[in-house]
């Protein structure tokens, strides 16, 4: 600690340069914090506390490939399977493509039976939904987002499903709202819009009789893995082989359809830190070059080679770690904003912890070359032009 005033004063020897360097490190670590958090969110989708008894069956090769509806009946007959429902990806948005709506055609009875521990719908609204063939049951948060009211007629544009009349626009009458029983799972449903599977299956111009994926609830969660194997065995060597997995893993597989998000984020961070390495490294090198006579004086006063090396390393670490902490703190504060854009995903502040390690590594890498240079200075040569 006794060296801190010396290291601190040295750091601020050229204020403008230090401020700009600090800012670049702060921005880099703000980006690091945000992207790490997003990466965490993509790799740890929220499964909820009640997901252990849920399985999802999809086409073995891709979720974009359908399964025949007949599979539903066969899965229902597997011992240990308590309830089965089926869904298809609608790919919907409202008015503009940025207004994503997680629209799902559902079979009302089986869907709500399977998710009875997770969803809340009033009896009156459920009745209205059942009684309205074109009805939609919409999450309260989505209603609020678009300013919809019960009774409104809303068009959703599907990016996949054309109707028999050739239109991609499907119009629904909002019959009621639903929400999550567990408030911590509310964000997972924030874009959800449920409508009748019958309407969808009869209205679409292709794919009739197929489903996107099948969900199951099992009686004994400890048997889920065996049941999944039994389900897949049913369809082995058929034209539509299946892959059955826990609902949490299914969510992961679903996200991976977007591409390797982690790789993309790491590639961006790699480019940022590669640039930062040169920027900060150059600053440290220049700073040490300017202070050659000062290091010579320190050595003259009795500071050994190791002490000089330590001082430069401390300066580099202080610069990188202090700025990184500010950047990470800002990204920590930005988590609620990021969360608004990543509905249905869990964000962890723990994802920011690796940032401290990266900052230390950065400090060591950019500090070591100038520190070695300062350490190897010969007093007589360094003082020669300054006496």
């Amino acid at each position, binding site marked *: 600690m006794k*060296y801190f005033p*010396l290291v601190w*004063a040295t750091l601020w*020897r050229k204020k403008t340069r230090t401020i700009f360097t600090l800012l670049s490190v702060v921005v880099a670590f703000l980006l690091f914090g945000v992207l790490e958090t997003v990466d965490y969110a993509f790799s740890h989708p929220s499964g909820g506390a009640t997901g252990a008894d849920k399985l999802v069956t999809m086409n073995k090769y891709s979720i974009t490939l359908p399964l025949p509806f007949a599979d539903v009946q066969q899965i229902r007959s597997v011992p240990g399977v308590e309830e089965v429902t089926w869904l298809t990806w609608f790919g919907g948005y409202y008015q503009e493509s940025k207004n994503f709506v997680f629209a799902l055609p559902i079979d009302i009875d089986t869907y709500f039976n399977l998710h009875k521990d997770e969803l809340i719908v009033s009896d009156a609204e459920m009745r209205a939904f059942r009684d309205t063939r074109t009805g939609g049951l919409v999450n309260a948060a989505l209603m609020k987002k678009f300013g919809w009211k019960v009774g409104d007629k809303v068009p959703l544009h599907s990016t996949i499903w054309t109707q028999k009349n050739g239109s991609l626009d499907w119009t629904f009458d909002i019959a009621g709202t639903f929400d999550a029983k567990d408030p911590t799972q509310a964000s997972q449903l924030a874009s959800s819009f449920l409508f009748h599977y019958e309407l969808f299956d009869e209205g679409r111009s292709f794919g009739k009789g197929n489903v996107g994926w099948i969900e199951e609830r099992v009686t004994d969660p400890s048997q889920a893995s065996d049941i999944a194997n039994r389900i897949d065995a049913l369809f082995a060597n058929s034209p539509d082989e299946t892959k059955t997995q826990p609902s949490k893993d299914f969510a992961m597989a679903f996200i991976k359809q977007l591409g390797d998000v982690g790789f993309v984020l790491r590639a961006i961070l790699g480019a940022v830190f590669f640039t930062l390495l040169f920027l900060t490294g150059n600053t440290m090198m220049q700073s040490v070059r300017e202070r050659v006579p*000062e290091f010579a*004086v320190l050595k003259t*006063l*009795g500071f050994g080679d190791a002490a000089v090396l330590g001082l430069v390393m401390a300066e580099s670490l202080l610069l990188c770690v202090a700025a990184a902490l500010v950047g990470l703190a800002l990204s920590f504060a930005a988590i609620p904003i990021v969360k608004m854009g990543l509905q249905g995903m869990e964000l962890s502040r723990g994802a920011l912890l690796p940032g401290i390690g990266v900052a230390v590594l950065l400090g060591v890498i950019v500090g070591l070359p100038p520190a070695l240079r300062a350490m190897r200075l010969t007093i007589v040569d360094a003082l020669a032009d*300054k*006496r």
Partner: protein
Amino acid sequence: MTETIVSLRHVAKSYLRGKQRIGVLQDLNLDIAKGEFVALMGPSGSGKTTLLNLIGGLDTPTSGEITVAGQRLDQLGGGALARWRSTHVGFVFQFYNLMPMLSAERNVELPLLLTRLSGAQRKAHALAALTLVGVEDRAKHKPSELSGGQAQRVAIARALVADATLLVCDEPTGDLDRKSADEVLHLLQVLNREHGKSIVIVTHDPKAAEFAGRQLHMDKGSLLEAGSLAA
């Protein structure tokens, strides 16, 4: 019998420039008594600064023996030499060589960072040294806010603060006007006479050399004469 603080026996120093070896000092013998104030004079390139570097432990001889304050410097490695410098010798340079971002007080405190003294003790020692050289009122000022004479006094305080027995000064008045130079030289004389510090200065200035008790003249790497002059 007078105690010797600096003893050089058959000291030679040469440098390699490319493939050529350049001799700077040849077969040099010298004794400086404890409490002596010695001025080294001579033309540029005569080897004054090289000799001062050897006495101060900043450099090592190519051959010969150097003993300073009872320690054979030619036998010490880099780390041991650095530790020895921190406790036995204080340096004063022509251009003061203060840390520009530190206050006078912090500059003086620097050598004490290598000791086990507490922060308060270091501060007290630094202020005492600044008081001794007469610039305690400039303790909080940075070098850029000091005159040349004041900056050199701060540099002298830094050389004194660890209680070095030997001060080596390379052209300590070379960057000062006559009045400031005389004040600094007078201060060195007081430190020599009243505080018993042994001092070796390198100077081109005959007036500055007059403050010393002995003047040594060098030329082409050798001592020309060693005469004892009345101070």
